[in-house]
């Protein structure tokens, strides 16, 4: 489910108590994204999540970063913050030195990808014409990868995007057990 309510750090009305926090900053280069996934897996293991949820978090984190970057990976930096307790892991991903785009492009209900084969020329899978790979030109996250949105919608409990002082930030919240 996608929501517009951000659980980002520093909110005065933060309803969830977290027991620990890990931060990772890395260049937004394709060959380094595996480091973000490794960290996600380590955090999920530390939070005593099961194997399936660890795999879910690895994939969701990867997609969160891809969505944040809007299909463009370059020499900017991604700063990831993981926070967790016995039930929930929250991740925020901030793009440092990044482009500015409208947050409404990402938050809100998942877009309809056509619901069918994705091969009819009208669905979000048309991005596959370039293999879903970065094009080199910055694009808004919503246009970059509908598959990412669909994966995030399925794997995490909440996710969203917002600008904080002009800095693009994506976030997600995943609970230990998959939502029914």
């Amino acid at each position: 489910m996608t929501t517009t309510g951000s659980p980002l750090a520093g909110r005065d009305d933060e309803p969830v108590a977290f027991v620990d926090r890990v931060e990772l900053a890395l260049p937004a280069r394709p060959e380094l994204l595996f480091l973000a996934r490794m960290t996600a897996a380590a955090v999920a293991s530390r939070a005593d999540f099961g194997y399936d949820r660890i795999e879910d978090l690895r994939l969701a984190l990867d997609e969160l970063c891809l969505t944040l970057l809007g299909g463009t990976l370059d020499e900017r930096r991604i700063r990831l913050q993981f926070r967790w307790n016995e039930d929930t892991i929250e991740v925020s991903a901030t793009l440092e030195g990044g482009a500015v785009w409208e947050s409404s492009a990402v938050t809100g209900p998942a877009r309809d990808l056509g619901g069918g084969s994705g091969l009819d020329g009208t669905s979000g899978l048309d991005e596959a014409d370039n293999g879903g790979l970065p094009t080199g030109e910055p694009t808004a996250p919503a246009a970059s990868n509908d598959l990412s949105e669909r994966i995030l919608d399925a794997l995490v409990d909440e996710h969203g995007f917002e600008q904080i002082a002009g800095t693009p930030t994506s976030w997600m919240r995943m609970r230990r057990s998959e939502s029914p």
Partner: protein
Amino acid sequence: MNAETGFDVTETTREGLPVLEVHGEVDVSTAPELRSKLLAVAQSGQKTAVVDLTNVTFVDSTALGVLVSALKRFRSNGGDLRLVVTQPHITKVLEITGLTDVFAIYTSSTEAAVGA
């Protein structure tokens, strides 16, 4: 082989069809190599090919995009792109993206090559 992700692609043949056996993690970093291999197979005149994901430990949306793009190309030439998937977490990604309804998916490369 990519040292960090274990990514590698090897090409074999089953029942006369090219089979790309993929290993390791297929992400935004390694998907371009898979795309190149698929493109080479398509350009060689093969109408149908098999991608064996049995030894793949991770796929993301960029990997799926490459597979869908290749599928379009093969089908536009009157052929098909068949997948071999045995890992539950790979199946799960295909399911949540709706791609289990798009690809012909098999549990072994031999079955995929025969198409049964």
